[in-house]
């Protein structure tokens, strides 16, 4: 029983030894320098990403602003079409086609409110 266990332990340790040997590989001497270079180029890449984000956000804001202005002007024109202007704007004084004489003999013009 003990011998069996010892044998098993030995096999396990032999197995571990083989795995350890297979993994006993070191990176090349340039590896650390390469990683440092990769990291050093990171802020620049992040900056360009950030700049692109700024540009995209700016463009979107501009599009939204233009859309708002256009829709507002459409809204105004649909609320107040040329033939439905506000009263003050639409006060039309009819031409004195023919002078009218009131009961008191006063000549009056006709003020018509159309619409």
């Amino acid at each position, binding site marked *: 029983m003990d011998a069996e266990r010892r044998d098993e332990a030995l*096999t*396990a340790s032999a*197995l*571990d030894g*083989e*795995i*350890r040997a*297979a*993994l006993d*590989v*070191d*990176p*090349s001497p340039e*590896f*650390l320098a*390469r*990683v*440092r270079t*990769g*990291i050093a180029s*990171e*802020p*620049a890449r*992040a*900056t360009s990403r*950030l*700049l692109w984000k700024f540009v995209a956000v700016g463009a979107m804001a501009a599009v939204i602003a233009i859309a708002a202005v256009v829709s507002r002007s459409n809204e105004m024109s649909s609320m107040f079409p040329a033939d439905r202007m506000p009263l003050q704007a639409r006060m039309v004084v009819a031409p004195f086609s023919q002078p009218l004489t009131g009961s008191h003999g006063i000549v009056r013009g006709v003020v018509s409110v159309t619409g």
Partner: protein
Amino acid sequence: MHDQAVRLAGSLIGVEPELEQEFEVRLVESSTLAFRVAFSVLRHRQDAEDIAQEAFVKAYRGFRQLRDRDRFRAWLVRMTWRLAIDRQRNDRRRTSREQENAGPPIPPAETATEAVDARERAEHLWAAIDTLPEKLRVVVVLSNIEEHDIGDVARLLGLPPGTVKSRLFLARQRLKEQLQWMLSDETRR
């Protein structure tokens, strides 16, 4: 203008000088670990270096947000493992496509030297490790890097030591079975 933008964004995104120093220390002490973790999956020196580098760049990006800096190695190991597994899957897909196009592989010329035996043994070992499920594979690999004990592996994987111990036992059992089966299969041939 561009320089100013770079400086501004650098200060917004980049790591402060003291953090950079801390990162440098961790880079030096964990570079071999990350490389070996990647190598255990990819078995290709250059690919393993690429993946380890990618993991360090990712780690650098997130270093400021890492609250518990003592968890750096665990974080790095998991990131490297994940990246390496992804690369391996992509490589396998690509290789199988290439093999479909290239036809059957040419067997190597038989030379009975010790170097060939050692290489064959290592190939068997890696093939057996590859058959293990991921959760057993990572335990057996980490326990054989930098003389990690069960506690170290448990900390690296964020698992209870008991779980690591049982997974390690199971992994060794399966490896032994797999290797015996491979050897017996070879002697039959």
